Each structure stands twice: as structure tokens, then as C-alpha cells.
């Protein structure tokens, strides 16, 4: 078997086209194929997770219980969160990294192509398990995506084991994907592509990959302890045996806080690629961007307990985590400043990727400010577990991470397909998303400050009007995303031919190869001046 395989490998290597049929996708080792798979998978998950959000908003449209049982509501919030974090945002960034990083640094492919395929194909199985658990007797996971003990141990249902093992697979996938990215960047840069010449998307992904390898194993440890507490009579999170449920939160958020930067650092990278292109200027403060990214990553390891201000930590702990958290706004401020300074006196044009990027800068900053409010310990005592928190993290994750993914997708779509996308339709997608997303998330600040708790299927009648508005915004935002699918589908099918450079101000190796990018790029490394 081995020799025939080897011959097949040698033979196929001489061809430059893509193999055809379903086997192309199942057996592929090509970074562009795997990138496309990641992106399509994340789009699918975006709609499944989005569907669950629609269920949540339908239930919350009016006070009282109308549509779903409270337990099912809890399953929806839980699985919505898990799917969006691990199934939509993270795979989308890995997909973009797969497509773009090798092209940006002049590499022939990812460093470990077969492992690359494995890290993708285990993902659909992980989510298959997670989704199947919803149909189990007793229902799916219902303890929130943060699976706090003892909700996930003493009080959870039988689906917990499936949840634990599916998270294990997601973790394995992320670790392998991250190892691939980090090794590609360290080892496969074309000669002359020094670290400080790398595009910022590559830089941010290098640092993200490091974070992933550092914290995903800690998540694996956390779910393992949940598993043993529930099924093997340990008491890590039970005071009766000398453990502590709060310890779960420490371990979880030691993973969880770097995790939220895992979901935003690549976004910073994408925005740092797009803004200079459409400003027709070099990025302002390149090296400060690199250092800001690195310091955000380092700080992310010492801020985890700001998620736990109300657990009764010692005062010194509360102060330490408050100040460290507020410190993060400094490098983040550097970034926002640099993007604005890049646009300052540039010759700006407003193509769709740029529109999403500008929306990102404004709306992500709003999310950043509400984050700063939450970082203040005494204020957080009031905000904790209210809709204000929901508003905050949806601003940084939807108008932050998702908008950057949309921006990146529109920016690189012509390079992937060889065609320009339908600009009118894309602009409609942008404007509808922009308006509806703010109708959806902005009033959440108000109901949150007024005291509406998160993760509940029913609420006091005083919140009724705002919730109706929020739900309408939610449905509008959900429906608007169908336009994105239409744009992508049309762009794959055809359209105006894209040039190699695609965008007038675009610079970098990926814009020097033809559009669509050939199946294999840079089999011999390019020369970097």
C-alpha cells in the first residue's frame, strides 16, 4: 500500500491543477483547498448558530414564555455560544490564515500539509457530536458556553460527556492548526522576508497561534476535570472533597481570556491590511502595531479574573485584575490610533472591504469602551451577568470579529475566485448589516444597565419595548446575512474579471500572483526586496 501511495504522490505532484470530485476535498493537502473548506464550514456554522440566536430572540420578543421551554432556551444560548466561538469565528480565521499566510510570505504551502487536512476534517465531526447531543434524551448542554461548575457537573444532563469530547476534538483541531501556522511563519518565509517585513495579518496570526497552543490545552484540562467530576467521582469543583467551584472559573478563564484575543487579534491583522490599501498609504506605525499586538497577547494571560469580580476574590486580586485589564486599553488604543492615522490625509475610496473596516474601527471601539467600563471592579458589581455584558461582547465579536471576517472575505474574494463580486449587492449587505446590528445590540446596553439579567427566557415587563426592538434588529441582521451568501455564490459563478492586483492601492505578494490564485503558488520562493 505504501509504495503505491508513494508513486501516486510523486505522480500527482507533477500536476499543477486540482484533482476533481469529492475526493479532492476529502484527501486534499492544498492550503487553498483547506482554506476554502474552513471558510465554507464556518459560514455553515454561522447560520446554524445564527438560527439558534433567532430562536432566542423570538422567545425574548415578548415577556412571558411563548415558544420554547426554559431548558431548551438554555440549550440554545449554550450551543449558540459554542458554535459561534469554536465553529464560526475561529475556523473562519484559520481559513483566512490557510489561504493568505503562505501567499503573503512566499511559501509553497503550509508547513505540514497532511496535518492541515486532519485539523480541518475533525472539526465537522466535533460539531456533529455537539449538535447530536441536542437530540439526546434529556436534551443537550444547557449550562452556558462557559460551562461553569456545578451546573456542568452536579446539575448537568447526560449530554455532558458528548459535550466534553466534542470540545476535546475542537481543541485538538485548534492546536494542530496553530502549530501549522506558527511553523509555516517561522520556517517557510521566502528569503528576504524578515520578521519586520511581514504583513500584519501574518504577525497577528503568529501571535494568535502562540496563544492557541498555550491555552487550548488548559481548556482540555478544564473539560477533563468536568468529566471526572461528573462521571468518576472526583471533587475538583466540589467543596465537600476539598475542591472549589470557583476554581473552575479560574481554570476556564485562564483559557477563556486569551481565547477572546484569539478571536480578535487576526481581526486587527485584517483591518491593518485593508485600511492602507484603500487609503493608498503605508500603514501608520507598523512596528508599534507589532509591539501592541504582542503586549495585548502577553497581558491576556494576567487578566482572566476580571470575569469573576463578583466571586468574592481577595481585594488585592480584584485590584490587580482591574488595573491589568485597564492596561490593555493602551495597546488597543495604539492600534485604533494607527488605523485612523493611516486614513488621515489618505486618498480614501470606499469599496465594500473598506466600509466594513471603518465600521469595525468605530463599532469595535464602542465594544472596547464598554469593556473598559466592565473592567472597573465596583462598576462591574452592577453590570455583572446583565445584558450590558451581552452588548459588550457582541460588539467586539459581531461588529468586531465577524465584521473583520466579512471585510477580509470581500477583500480577498476576487483573489480567490478570479471575479469581482457584485458591488451593489455587497453594499446592500453592508448597510443592512450595519443598521440592523446596531438596532440589535445597542439597546442591550440600556436594558443591561437597567438590570435585565442575561441567559433568561423571561423578563420583567419594563424591558418589553427594548426587547421587541432588539429582536427586530436580530431578525433583520440574520436575514441580511443571506445577501452575503448570494454575493459569494455569484462571485464564484462569474462576473467581471479581476486583475492581479484587484484593488488599486493593494500591495504585497498575494497581489502579485494571478487572480484566481493558481493551485500552487511560490513553488520556488520569490525574491523579496
Amino acid at each position, binding site marked *: 500500500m505504501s509504495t503505491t501511495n508513494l508513486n501516486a504522490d510523486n505522480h500527482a505532484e507533477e500536476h499543477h491543477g486540482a484533482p476533481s470530485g469529492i475526493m479532492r476535498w476529502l484527501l486534499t*493537502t492544498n492550503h487553498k483547498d483547506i482554506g476554502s473548506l474552513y471558510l465554507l464550514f464556518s459560514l455553515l456554522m454561522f447560520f446554524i448558530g445564527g438560527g439558534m440566536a433567532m430562536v432566542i430572540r423570538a422567545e425574548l420578543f415578548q415577556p412571558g414564555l411563548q415558544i420554547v421551554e426554559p431548558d431548551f432556551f438554555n440549550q440554545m444560548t449554550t450551543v449558540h455560544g459554542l458554535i459561534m466561538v469554536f465553529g464560526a469565528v475561529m475556523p473562519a480565521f484559520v481559513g483566512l490564515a490557510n489561504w493568505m499566510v503562505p501567499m503573503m510570505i512566499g511559501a509553497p504551502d503550509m508547513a505540514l500539509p497532511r496535518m492541515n487536512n486532519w485539523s480541518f476534517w475533525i472539526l465537522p465531526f466535533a460539531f456533529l457530536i455537539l449538535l447530536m447531543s441536542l437530540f439526546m434524551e434529556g436534551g443537550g448542554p444547557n449550562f452556558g458556553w462557559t460551562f461553569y461548575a456545578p451546573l456542568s457537573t452536579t446539575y448537568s444532563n447526560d449530554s455532558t*460527556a458528548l459535550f466534553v469530547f466534542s470540545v476535546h476534538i475542537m481543541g485538538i483541531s485548534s*492546536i494542530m492548526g496553530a502549530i501549522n501556522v506558527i511553523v509555516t511563519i517561522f520556517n517557510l518565509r521566502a528569503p528576504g522576508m524578515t520578521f519586520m517585513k511581514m504583513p500584519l495579518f501574518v504577525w497577528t496570526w503568529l501571535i494568535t497561534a502562540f496563544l492557541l497552543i498555550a491555552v487550548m490545552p488548559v481548556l482540555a484540562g478544564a473539560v*477533563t*476535570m468536568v468529566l471526572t467530576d461528573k462521571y468518576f467521582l472526583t471533587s475538583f469543583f466540589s467543596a465537600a472533597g476539598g475542591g472549589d467551584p470557583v476554581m473552575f472559573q479560574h481554570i476556564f478563564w485562564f483559557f477563556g481570556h486569551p481565547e477572546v484575543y484569539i478571536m480578535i487579534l487576526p481581526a486587527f491583522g485584517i483591518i491593518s491590511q485593508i485600511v492602507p490599501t484603500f487609503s493608498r498609504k503605508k500603514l501608520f506605525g507598523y512596528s508599534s502595531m507589532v509591539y501592541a499586538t504582542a503586549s495585548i497577547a502577553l497581558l491576556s494571560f494576567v487578566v482572566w479574573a476580571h470575569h469573576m469580580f463578583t466571586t468574592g476574590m481577595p481585594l488585592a486580586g480584584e485590584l490587580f485584575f482591574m488595573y491589568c485589564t485597564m492596561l490593555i486599553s493602551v495597546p488597543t488604543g495604539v492600534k485604533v490610533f494607527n488605523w485612523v492615522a493611516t486614513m488621515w490625509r489618505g486618498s480614501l475610496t470606499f469599496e465594500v472591504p473598506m466600509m466594513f473596516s471603518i465600521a469595525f474601527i468605530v463599532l469595535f471601539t464602542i465594544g472596547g469602551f464598554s469593556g473598559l467600563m466592565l473592567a472597573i471592579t465596583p462598576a462591574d458589581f452592577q453590570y455583572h451577568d446583565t445584558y450590558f455584558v451581552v452588548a459588550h461582547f457582541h460588539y467586539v465579536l459581531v461588529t468586531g470579529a465577524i465584521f473583520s471576517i466579512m471585510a477580509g472575505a470581500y477583500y480577498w474574494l476576487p483573489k480567490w475566485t478570479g471575479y469581482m463580486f457584485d458591488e451593489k449587492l455587497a453594499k446592500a449587505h453592508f448597510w443592512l448589516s450595519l443598521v440592523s446590528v446596531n438596532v440589535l445590540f445597542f439597546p442591550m446596553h440600556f436594558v443591561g444597565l437597567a438590570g435585565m439579567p442575561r441567559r433568561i427566557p423571561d423578563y420583567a415587563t419594563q424591558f418589553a419595548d427594548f426587547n421587541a426592538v432588539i429582536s427586530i434588529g436580530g431578525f433583520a441582521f440574520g436575514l441580511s446575512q443571506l445577501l452575503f451568501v448570494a454575493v459569494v455564490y455569484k462571485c464564484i459563478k462569474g462576473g467581471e474579471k479581476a486583475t492581479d492586483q484587484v484593488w488599486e492601492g493593494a500591495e504585497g505578494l498575494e497581489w502579485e500572483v494571478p487572480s484566481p490564485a493558481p493551485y500552487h503558488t511560490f513553488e520556488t520562493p520569490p525574491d523579496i526586496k
Partner: protein
Amino acid sequence: MNNNEYEKYYVPAQSPWPIVGAIGLFCIAFGAGNYVNDVKNEVTGFGGYLLLAGIAIIIFMLVGWFRNVIDESMAGMYSKQLDRSFRQGMSWFIFSEVMFFCAFFGALLYARVFSIPWLGGASNNAMTHEVLWPAFEAIWPLTTTPSGQVTEAMGWNGLPLINTIILLVSSVTCHFAHVGLEQDKRKQLKWGLGITVLLGVIFLFLQVEEYTHAYQEMGLMLSSGMYGNTFYLLTGFHGLHVTLGTIMLFIMFLRIVIKDHFTPENHFGFQAASWYWHFVDVVWVCLFIFVYIM
């Protein structure tokens, strides 16, 4: 090795192994998920069989995948740059393993420094102690849990000390074998590696002895509160890693003795296995200090 300025980086064409591995991993996860529920609810289901099938598929995948890689490597298709990719990949993998153990060491330290003293009334928790378990004494090893479960602590001398010496010696013999490989002294390589594998097997055997002793004579069990939890999860995961490391080294041993693989310049497979072995050794030293002695 050719003399071009840049060697071509070998990008394998299609490979069936990843998708086979994905199916295997699915069977393991779905099987194990059902199996633990079957055991808990005392019913018989398909979970256990699916788990075993998954493990079989993964072994099949690993054999096939590594056979491909070894054949390609022996055919000289790998450049120095690709070798570096493997080395860096393995280093990062070991780093991720370190972080996995950190989670459990973190739990151990948290229990000893925070949760147990707090349950005993330390800091501002006098009322917690008074109201919940007034009879509880915060001492480590936690031989009596707050709810009153009693167990016995494992001493550090005896088997654990012997095991420590065994692993430390095995790290030296592993290095001895590595030096032999680099200096092309095949005899030194074979003896060094063979003894390392043997020491690994002896370590595992003694570990099983220790567990049996703990369960049958000391009443120290996985369910014996925080002391038993951290003891078994840390030593247990370490034991799994020793098992994996021993298998890796044994395969390297077979490759060297039967197939005469590896040269002083080209021996990534051996190097990866030996790195892994040194890593499990370091973890053991930390375990010995924090779990057994302190």
C-alpha cells in the same frame, strides 16, 4: 540533497490518512461519550465498542501515515527545511503538552494554597468553616475531606523514589543513545535505546504496583477527595505519556535494529521520541516534588 540555492519544499499530494484519522477520532469521542453514560446509568450500549473501533482506526491511521512519511524520508524527498518544520512542530506540540499538565498542577496548587485553607477558615472564611464543616482541619495531604471521607497519603520514599531514579537514569541512557547516533556508534545507540525502553516498561510496571497498593491496601482512590483527585489525574496522565513515549522509543528501536534507519545527520524521528522522553521525565520530577514530597 541538490545544489540549488533553495531546495524544493516537499508538498505531499492527496493523502487518505487524515480523513481516516478524523473518522477514528469521531468514533473515539462519540463512543467514549456514550460509554461513560452507559457505565453511569448501568446499561449496555454500543459506546464501548465504538470507542474500541475508534482506537483501532487511529492505530491503523498512525501506522499508515507514519509508513508514508518514513518511506518518503528514506527516499530522500525531504529537505533540510522540511526537517526543521518537523522539529519546530514537535517542539510546539510538547509545549502544548506542558500547558495541559499546567492545568492540573494549577488545580493542585489552587487547592493547597486557596480552597483547602479557606474551607478551614483561613483569610475571611471563619464563618464558612463554622457553618459548613466545623470539624474540618485544613492540612495537606488532605487525608480527611470536609465531608469526612478518610484516606491515606502516599509516601515519597519506596516505590515513588525508585521510579524517580528509574526515569532519571532512563533520560541519561536516552541521551547516551542520542550521542551514539550522532557519533555513528550504532552499538552504543542500540544499547542505550534498548535500556531506555526497558526502564520505561519497568517504570510502568511499578506504577501499576503502586496503584494496586493504593487501592487495595491504603484506600487511596480517585474518588478520595482533592488529594486522590490530583494524585491520580497527575500521575495517571503522566503514566499515559510514559506509555506513549515508551511506544515511540520502542518503534525507534525496531527501526534501528531491524531496518537500520537513521544517520548522524538525519534522525528526526529518533530526536522527536527522545525529546518527548525528556519531557515526560521533567514532568515526573515536578510530580515527585509537588505531589509526593511537598
